[in-house]
């Protein structure tokens, strides 16, 4: 007769045995997981409804001929075929590329320069930092209106200052040659605060011992900047470049307020053209096709940056 030993009696499992019958992690930490999902849900719902949904919808609409009011008709890829001979579309894309590839490096240089300056341990740095961040924190349309006044050829402040140095300033916003540079200048002023804050945060986490070691080794300031600061700042630079390029490809409000795309179409940006196609010309399908092309451009450029990241971005020395 088998006798149950006390040890066997006390060995009865208090938890389910390991193996296939074990409860999954989700249920084991059920209450925490549910709470996490509850917190994530509004954000996730917002992403699905306001970001992913519209992208999918734009993809579907790009295959339609739809003037908003009449029933849409499926026309396949005809809207994409229209893009080829549309000189205004390519001109708008060219203007957007011009804006992006001039304004982004300029903004980065100004941001980095100011961040380095503020990182020197200036007194009242918080005040300077706040003041320099103000343009970024201000609504673009309001800033654009102020710059329109600054750019007035005859009575504007910019030409008045140039005049004090004997320079006859251009007719900024109505000049074929100067309208885009004027937009870029305003955008750099508006945007540098964002990069400056990111760079400043990056600079402040670089270990001081590295600078001390460089000093002991007799490295010049420029050599220290190249060998220590820039490599350790590269994640911040990478983040700022990616977000700035994406933002610049979507430039719209300042161009609309300051030049309305003119003179001619010299400052018509791609998003402005998309808006006009969709809501002034009532060609929703064609506007959606343009949006998809813009989306593809941004995806390709961002993917290229992430590929380059492997070679250029250093997360440690």
């Amino acid at each position, binding site marked *: 007769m088998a006798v149950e030993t006390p040890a066997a009696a006390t060995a009865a499992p208090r938890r389910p045995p390991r193996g296939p019958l074990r409860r999954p992690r989700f249920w084991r930490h059920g209450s925490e997981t549910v*709470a996490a999902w509850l917190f994530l849900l509004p954000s996730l719902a917002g992403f699905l409804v306001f970001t992913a949904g519209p992208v999918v919808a734009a993809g579907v609409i790009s295959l339609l001929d739809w003037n*908003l*009011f009449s029933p849409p008709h499926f026309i396949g890829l005809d809207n994409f075929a229209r893009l080829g001979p549309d000189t205004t579309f390519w001109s708008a894309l060219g203007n957007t590329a011009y804006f992006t590839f001039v304004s982004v490096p300029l903004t980065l240089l100004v941001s980095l320069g100011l961040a380095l300056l503020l990182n020197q341990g200036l007194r009242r740095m918080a005040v300077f930092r706040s003041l320099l961040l103000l343009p970024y924190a201000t609504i673009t349309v309001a800033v654009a209106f102020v710059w*329109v006044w600054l750019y007035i050829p*005859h009575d504007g402040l910019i030409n008045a200052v140039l005049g004090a140095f004997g320079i006859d300033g251009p007719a900024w*916003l*109505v000049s074929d040659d100067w309208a885009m540079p004027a937009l870029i200048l305003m955008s750099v002023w508006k945007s540098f605060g964002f990069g400056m804050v990111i760079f400043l945060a990056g600079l402040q986490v670089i270990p001081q011992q590295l600078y001390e070691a460089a000093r002991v080794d007799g490295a010049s300031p420029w050599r220290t900047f190249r060998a220590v600061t820039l490599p350790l700042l590269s994640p911040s630079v990478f983040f700022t470049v990616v977000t700035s390029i994406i933002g610049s490809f979507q430039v719209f409000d300042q161009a609309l307020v300051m*030049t309305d795309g003119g003179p001619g179409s010299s400052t018509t940006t791609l998003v402005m053209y998309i808006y006009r196609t969709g809501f002034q010309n*009532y060609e929703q399908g064609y506007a959606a096709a343009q949006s998809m092309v813009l989306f593809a451009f941004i995806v390709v450029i961002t993917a290229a940056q992430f590929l380059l990241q492997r070679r250029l971005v250093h997360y440690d020395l």
Partner: protein
Amino acid sequence: MSSSFPRRALLKGAALGGLATTGALSGCSSGPPPGTATWSMWSSSPEENRVWADFGRYVERRMHIRSASTLTPSDGYPTKLDLQLVSGTAGMVTALNGWLIPTYASRGAHRPLDDLIAADPDFDLDDFYPAIRSISSFADHTYAIGFDVAPTVLYYNRTLLERNGVDPPSPTEPMSWDTFRDLAIELSKPKDQYGFTCAPTIDDLVSWIYCAGGDVLDGDRDTSPLDAPEALQAIHYVVDLFVKDRVTPPIDNLVAQNASGASLANFLQGNVAFMQNGPWQVLNVRKAPFTWDIVPFPAGPAGSTPRVSGSGFAIPSGVKDDDLDLAWRLLKTLTSTGALNIYARAGRNNPARVSAASAFEPPPANLGIVQRILKGEVAGGHPFNVTTNWNRVRLLLGQDLPRAFLGQVSAREAIDGVMPRLNALMRQHRDAVRQAT
């Protein structure tokens, strides 16, 4: 007794509360209750807001139902209306600027009103000026009932003219183009004083083109007659006022110049002798710190026949059944003599009804010429004829013509540059008309 509230429980509560709030807000509906008279209108100033508030009270008094108006600044009005029409949230009656009527009519966004007019013996369409009836029609159907109509006129700064020893122009005999140009040059002599202001846009330029006997569109052909000698003569004349004669304030900003109020802002500064504009600006010019008046538009080779513009109320296609009956009654009330008397007494613009016209009272002293021009007693006018894709025409010309006004290209070069694209838009317009009919 103290009670503890664990952090985890607090966070869970916050998450659930947030979700509940989000759900509650998404389920809310803020639309007016059924049976409310809903209508949409543009409004860009407190003065205009007051006029529409008076309209709302008038509707409630006459119809014994609640009135709910949606007022939007004029610049954003068409876009908002588009979205409301598509989403089915537009008012049962919507205001439409005349140049947008063919656009909406050809796309089926608004319904023709002929059946409602025919079934209503109380409604007298003949009480409306012929110009607004023409502007409110598309493909031989009436799509809107007008609430204002007026020709472009010439405002002049009487104080400035007197200071320069110049007699005021005749309120009944339009100046010739040559006389006007000479006067504008004479009044531009002192520094920072200018003879004339207008916007370098097709909407202002078209009045000169009509006065030269030209047009932007010709319904019988595939091509625009904008490069015809008559139109080119007018474009050359106005461009010369800007570039050669330099009688206009410098163009500093294309966006501001495109805005309807840009030339008004120039005029209100007090250093501009003449401004091309419509009587819809009387309300705003009354704020001017100088004396002023209006006279007929200068007469070109075809006489004084500037553009006559107007606006009306229309019913969206989605309004049906009982709502349609209510919408028609609302539309009739909003365009009744009583309502338009409110509109005219406020000086908002010349009313579209002949029976309400006398309410549009001076000042200025010559305001009566507006009605006399519409009746054909003084000078004349030309209905502002537009295409079903006028937005695109306007955008095309708005982008390319300013270069001529800035002296960057000649008027001829600017016109030659746009003609292929303009003709493509004309063909598109003709196709849209054919499909709609």
